[in-house]
């Protein structure tokens, strides 16, 4: 049962969302600094220490209250997990989707505009929103992705969606 205090806190969270989010951001930044310090203390280079700290933190999106309503992923090109990440590489027209199959998952990306159309016309195949991380050499990159069932990419005669597979 929800108590009055909990209800008040939830209401406060609604009205002061941005300040809470800012505070959480500060806290996560502080977490990264502390973790980086520990790795530096173990003798890692500053770059590697930072990278490891980010990897260990993981799931930042999940730790923030609420999940983004729309997948706002930005990943460009035919990069595959495991290939070097070369700095900021984002495009508002590209999204990453996780596609569920019977026994394994596959990763696809496709043009943003068309997928938005598809989301509206076939909502049942849209499963939700999740996070992925592309990691390799350099700074790991955190991406927001949408897990979908395989029929999400069923070709349409008028505007076929041609996902690009990268990874297993």
């Amino acid at each position: 049962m929800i108590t009055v205090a909990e209800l008040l806190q939830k209401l406060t969270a609604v009205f002061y969302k941005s300040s809470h989010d800012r505070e959480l951001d500060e806290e996560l930044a502080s977490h990264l600094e502390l973790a980086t310090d520990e790795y530096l203390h173990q003798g890692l280079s500053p770059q590697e220490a930072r990278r490891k700290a980010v990897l260990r933190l993981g799931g930042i999106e999940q730790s923030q209250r609420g999940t983004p309503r729309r997948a706002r992923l930005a990943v460009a090109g035919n990069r595959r997990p495991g290939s070097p990440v070369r700095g900021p590489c984002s495009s508002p027209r590209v999204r990453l989707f996780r596609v569920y199959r019977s026994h394994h998952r596959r990763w696809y990306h496709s043009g943003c505009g068309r997928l938005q159309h598809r989301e509206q016309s076939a909502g049942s195949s849209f499963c939700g929103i999740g996070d992925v991380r592309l990691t390799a050499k350099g700074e790991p990159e955190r991406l927001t992705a949408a897990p979908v069932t395989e029929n999400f990419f069923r070709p349409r005669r008028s505007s076929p969606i041609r996902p690009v597979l990268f990874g297993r």
Partner: protein
Amino acid sequence: MREPKLDLLQGTLDVMVLQTLATLGPLHGYGIARRIEQVSGDQVLLNQGTIYAALVRLQQKSWIASEWGTSDNNRKAKYYAITAKGRQQLAADMAYWQRLASVMERVFAMSSTEPAQ
């Protein structure tokens, strides 16, 4: 071959956080995460970011309180402490988990030769 790490069962992380704070006193999120990893002997697959979801949840229930402070290495950090209400909850949770563990132990100890009653 190394055994895969254990996924935390739902509800266990909150108890772990409460117990860590009850034992060690006020700690920042990173300290809590590291402590849980150390105590589990690196057996638990802990995404450190999920600690913050648990901390928000526990704070909303008034089981923990927080305030900003400075860490040993002079970093600004938010410190969490268990409240009286949190201690009560921890006692209840511990009793629940101990009961559950004892039931599971009995279930796993069942022998196939035992007669059905």
